[in-house]
């Protein structure tokens, strides 16, 4: 896996493998994406990664689309397609078979135990995502303050997240950050 290899196959391999470890959804895999995209493969800079995360949150659709954006920036449209399918395909097939299995042997208590065991893991992963993204995108104390303010607002109120994202964009445009 060095720069000499075909980027598409690297993408497929990377995200296909990552998807199987993404306990709790795409957001918990962000630290790993950051590690691979920025530190290991040097596909993009810290700043670009933060931008891509912002775009993926702004665009409609599942959060997993951050993978599409990374794929695109590495290898164009083909890369976007390859990365998305690699991220979604294996686990979708797995989900399909497991759900059929569970339908047959219904109400085992394993699902509850597995879920109880994995919930703390996935929250910890998402917390790590938050930290890493905060370090990459909050370059000034004002930016850190905005992140904190949004976190508190979103936690305490039922405000639609889109407004908070747009407010952040407006503040950024105004040159506050």
């Amino acid at each position, binding site marked *: 896996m060095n720069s000499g290899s075909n980027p598409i196959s690297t993408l497929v391999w990377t995200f296909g493998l990552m998807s199987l470890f993404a306990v709790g959804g795409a957001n918990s895999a962000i630290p790993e994406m950051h590690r691979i995209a920025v530190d290991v493969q040097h596909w993009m800079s810290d700043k670009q990664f933060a931008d891509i995360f912002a775009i993926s949150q702004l665009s409609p659709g599942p959060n997993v689309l951050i993978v599409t954006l990374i794929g695109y920036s590495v290898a164009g449209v083909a890369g976007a397609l390859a990365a998305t399918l690699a991220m979604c395909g294996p686990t*979708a097939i797995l989900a399909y078979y497991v759900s059929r299995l569970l339908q047959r042997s219904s109400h085992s208590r394993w699902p509850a135990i597995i879920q109880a065991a994995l919930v703390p893991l996935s929250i910890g992963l998402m917390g790590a995502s938050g930290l890493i993204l905060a370090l990459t995108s909050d370059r000034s104390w004002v930016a850190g303050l905005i992140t904190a303010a949004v976190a508190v607002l979103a936690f305490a109120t039922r405000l639609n997240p889109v407004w908070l994202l747009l407010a952040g964009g407006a503040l950024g445009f105004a040159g506050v950050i």
Partner: protein
Amino acid sequence: MAFAKMSLAGFGGVLVWARRGIVDQHRWMTAEEFNETFALCHFLPGPNIVNLSVVFGARFRGIAGGIAAFAGLVGPPMVIATILAALYARYGEIDALRRILAGVSCAAVGLLISVVFKMMMPLIKKRDAVGLVILVAVFIAIGLVRLPLQAVLLVAIPLSLGITYFMRRRVNA
């Protein structure tokens, strides 16, 4: 299929919309069925909502239904994301856009952090000390030490499973 519409409506995450469409509008599933399916898709790895759509589609129309739901959910947003990525690649260096994106990413990180705290609340309320310790350990290993995900999970998943299983047995005994 309705998944296409849903996927476009869901800014920052589709789950809420998926529930509304499947349970409230189309009555394809009861609330209990939805919760069970969602729980299943939550403990499987990978993007939850994508898994959910596939399982859901497959339950109605077999493999073809699964593929249709998948394409409906992922297709349209993927096209949009690709267009956005292309725009970013071309205009990403423009100063105004850079500033806007910087602002949006600050807010987006804040949103993510708020979700983390919301998800932590049930653990804190239950005084689930084991869960919280595991949570913090994973956070440190990935967030601060920056260990590779696979290595951390290969240790953490069996450990957490074992402890949870053991605790449940003791409670039941």
